[in-house]
């Protein structure tokens, strides 16, 4: 049993980004960790770090988290240079310590983008994404009794594609992974989802024009089609949604009825 327990534990060196506030200069704090269970999630490992810090009478490391089951989009972190860590299609909260080696040094940084200012330590302000959504990422419907579901036929392939785009949890990992800090995959997923569905049709043109305008104004970069976003996305959202947004944008600009 004891031999088994030993292999299930890791000793780690952490380089954790510490930053007092949005305008403070940050730096890495080196922490040594002993006997970290491989069954812990990455965030549980950080909980251990914080327990140690609190018992030392120091400020715990601030990091974003909520559901811890990979669906809320609150957790973030760049772990050893990879958004949400080394496992594909996995959020940081669903990443387990068994994917790390004993004695490994792990560098933990916040998502970095001018549009995502650091609030404190590893916490970042992602409300720029909310402002993109409020500028058009919705459908306007009058409330009332629901109509018959069969009154709005949707082809299965379109419904599936729209669902793939709707899988976005809004974590902003695409922005963090993009060499240009662009928000094209995030914005593209919402534009694409609603463009694929009849419910999105009435506001199809104004939506894409407005969302792209907001995206640009928030200071995100331009897409250079490196596809790091898709590779880092915990929901594996495809860059074909960016291409659909590009089509929607040019269509609305060149032949749309909006002025």
């Amino acid at each position, binding site marked *: 049993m004891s031999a088994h327990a030993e292999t299930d534990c890791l000793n780690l060196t952490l380089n954790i980004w510490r930053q007092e506030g949005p305008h403070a200069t940050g730096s890495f704090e080196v922490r040594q960790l002993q006997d970290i269970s491989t069954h812990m999630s990455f965030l549980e490992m950080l909980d251990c770090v914080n327990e140690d810090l609190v018992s030392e009478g120091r400020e715990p490391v601030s990091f974003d988290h909520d559901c811890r089951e990979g669906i809320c989009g609150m957790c973030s972190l760049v772990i050893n240079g990879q958004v949400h860590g080394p496992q594909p299609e996995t959020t940081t909260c669903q990443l387990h310590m068994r994917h790390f080696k004993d004695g490994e040094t792990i560098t933990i940084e916040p998502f970095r983008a*001018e549009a995502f200012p650091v609030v404190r330590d590893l916490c970042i302000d992602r409300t720029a994404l909310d402002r993109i959504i409020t500028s058009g990422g919705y459908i306007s419907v009058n409330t009332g009794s629901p109509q018959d579901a069969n009154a709005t036929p949707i082809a299965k392939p379109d419904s599936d594609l729209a669902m793939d785009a709707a899988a976005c949890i809004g974590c902003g990992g695409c922005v963090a992974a993009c060499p240009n800090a662009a928000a094209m995959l995030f914005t593209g997923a919402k534009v694409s989802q609603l463009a694929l569905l009849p419910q999105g049709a009435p506001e199809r043109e104004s939506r894409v024009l407005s969302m792209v305008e907001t995206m640009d104004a928030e200071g995100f*970069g331009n897409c250079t089609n490196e596809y790091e976003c898709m590779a880092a996305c915990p929901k594996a959202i495809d860059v074909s949604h960016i291409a659909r947004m*590009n089509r929607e*944008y040019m269509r609305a600009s060149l032949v749309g009825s909006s002025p």
Partner: protein
Amino acid sequence: MLGWLIRTASSSIGKKALMALTGLLLIGFLVVHLAGNLTFYMDGDGAAFDSYAETLESNPLLPLAEFGLLVLFVTHIVLALRVTKQNRDARKSRYAVRATAGGSTAGSRSMVITGIVLLVFLVVHIMDFRLQNDGTESMAALVREELSAPLGAGLYAVAMLALGLHVSHAFKSAMQTLGCNHPKYTPLIEKVSLGLGIVLGLGFLSFPLVIFFLGGSAAGGQA
């Protein structure tokens, strides 16, 4: 009335669409340019190449075509500089550790660097063969003279490797920017992009290599 045009052309997607369009047209130019250059290998003394150059230069519409090329290059380069500046500004604090998640390629990562190399090359190339050429010397002789010097051959070789790398990402990137992404043809576009990079890169690279190492006359190499 032109508000929509300014808005579209200055948006992130509009800028990239313009870069994609000008880039695709420039790839078209490169294909024609390579085809013309390959006449260099048609005979031993470069007469076919000289006659091709003469035909091209005696065309009264050449200045118009050159103006068109200038517009394409300037648009593409100015937008590239603007886009790159904005992209740098979008992330001022760098990551201490950076690892690819598997999306990018050597071509995609080096677009700015290869672009700058190509810009320097473009200036040198125009000075070498367009401005320096007073019509008295045969074009084939001028090419041989330029590319048999180590500096000339070296610069051209490096620039053509950069060209191949640039184009290998450029074509598929332009298609994606223009919205052409579909399971039916995206795999083909990716192969064509790589193929264009290899063919254009190696095609143009052959000139400095053949002339420098085989001594100047045609592929037959009777130096």
